[in-house]
């Protein structure tokens, strides 16, 4: 194929990511389980890149988990999302930046619905006005926060204090990237690289010096689902999907896993603990677990942020082996030390201790 042809085809897999002025909507799961991630994103955007990112404390959950769990009707979630758009409209923002992949899927699904069924948009406008007295404009762009980090990946690389390189060998770290299903599998044009070639995390890892592992189950779902884990007895379906991925990636000896969906990152971290407790199996090098990081945490490490301020100590799989490979000096004794000197609660049975 001629290079021009390739460029034309690849152009169809790109999406528009604005340069500045974002209305940021947080994630229920990310801010609960990866407490430093969103703060890290905001710090990089505001302090390191000088961007305008606005947050409104009146923003609520998108209710996506309830929607996918079949307890929140579609009309309700449309009205909740319309309220978020109303908050953005009131603040004067046209670019939405979404922390969560579930929310991102919800927003794109609703916008597509409104596009193809305009009567649902009118109904939602009416519902929102009757419930809250608010009106809204449809945002001009919808970006996942990982899209934005992807856009500025080279700028981050230029400011990087550490690279994704094993300092003892000089070789690139081997990274597994996992894209949340709701990022681009439902609406491929909403993700960089579409559903077939999602490039959002690959671009970051390569820009920061790492190598991507292309393993057989790379595009398999992490198993998060919603009904699978909401019902305790069904969690066997969820964990078996993650295990299939771990078994598939194990021979390539990954140094870390990076995810853009908070649910994926949470389960791929927590299920390693559960599999170890149930079957005594780990999938990393030398009998260790494979650290699972969000893209914000990885960006933070590259930028030289304190790993304990990023919240890495609250992952089930601890990151000390990764930090040593990258040459990051972090005192394990300070892991659970709060800034005021008090001790934070310490989780039991952590992996890679």
């Amino acid at each position, binding site marked *: 194929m001629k290079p021009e042809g390739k460029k034309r085809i690849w152009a169809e897999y790109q999406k528009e990511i604005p340069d500045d002025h974002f209305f940021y909507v947080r994630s229920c799961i990310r801010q609960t389980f990866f407490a430093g991630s969103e703060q890290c994103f905001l710090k990089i955007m505001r302090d390191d890149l000088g961007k305008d990112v606005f947050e409104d404390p009146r923003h609520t959950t998108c209710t996506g988990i309830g929607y996918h769990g079949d307890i929140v009707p579609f009309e309700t979630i449309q009205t909740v999302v319309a309220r978020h758009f109303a908050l953005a409209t009131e603040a004067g923002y046209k670019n939405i930046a979404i922390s969560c992949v579930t929310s991102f899927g919800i927003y794109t699904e609703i916008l597509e619905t409104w596009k193809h069924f305009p009567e649902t948009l009118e109904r939602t406008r009416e519902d929102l006005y009757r419930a809250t007295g608010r009106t809204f404009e449809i945002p001009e762009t919808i970006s996942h926060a990982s899209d934005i980090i992807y856009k500025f990946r080279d700028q981050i690389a230029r400011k990087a204090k550490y690279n994704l390189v094993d300092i003892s060998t000089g070789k690139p770290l081997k990274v597994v990237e996992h894209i949340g299903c709701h990022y681009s599998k439902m609406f491929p044009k909403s993700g960089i690289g579409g559903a077939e070639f999602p490039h959002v995390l690959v671009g970051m890892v390569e820009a920061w010096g790492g190598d991507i592992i292309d393993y057989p189950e790379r595009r398999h779902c992490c198993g998060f689902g919603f009904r699978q884990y909401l019902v*305790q*007895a*069904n*969690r*066997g*379906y969820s*964990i*078996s999907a993650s*295990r*299939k991925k771990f*078994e598939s990636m194990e021979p390539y000896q990954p140094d870390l896993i990076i995810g853009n969906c908070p649910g994926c990152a949470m389960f791929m971290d927590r299920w390693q603990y*559960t*599999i170890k*407790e*149930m*079957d005594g199996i780990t999938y990393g090098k030398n009998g260790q677990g494979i650290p699972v990081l969000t893209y914000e945490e990885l960006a933070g490490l590259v930028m030289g942020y304190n790993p304990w301020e990023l919240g890495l100590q609250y992952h089930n799989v601890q990151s000390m082996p990764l930090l040593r490979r990258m040459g990051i000096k972090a005192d394990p004794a300070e892991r659970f030390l709060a800034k005021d000197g008090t001790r934070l609660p310490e989780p039991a049975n952590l992996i890679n201790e």
Partner: protein
Amino acid sequence: MSAGQANRFGFVINPSRLIDYDTSDRKVREYITLREPSFTLCFACGGCAATCTAGQHTSFNLRRMNTYIRRGEIEPLREEVTRCMLCGKCLLVCPRGVNTRNVVSLAAEAIRKLERNEL
């Protein structure tokens, strides 16, 4: 995993359904299709399993057995093939005219040959 651990978590890890084509053994399928070519006509409708007397009383399932043969999954096939009583009711309902009884018989024969390293 012990039952105690299962209770502690409230669930168990489902066994993997991953089919590893590097380790699957197609010898049994080749042995059967060579001797009973009608086996290739099966389109897995499940009529055989629905009418099966052995299937009413045990976990035997002819359609599942055919899947094991096609995928080359020998271990589960070894157990499955012993459950058929060779009554032949499945022959009467098969819409594709597959000689199902002969398929089971050949599968059992192939397994025996495999165990004797004759296949």
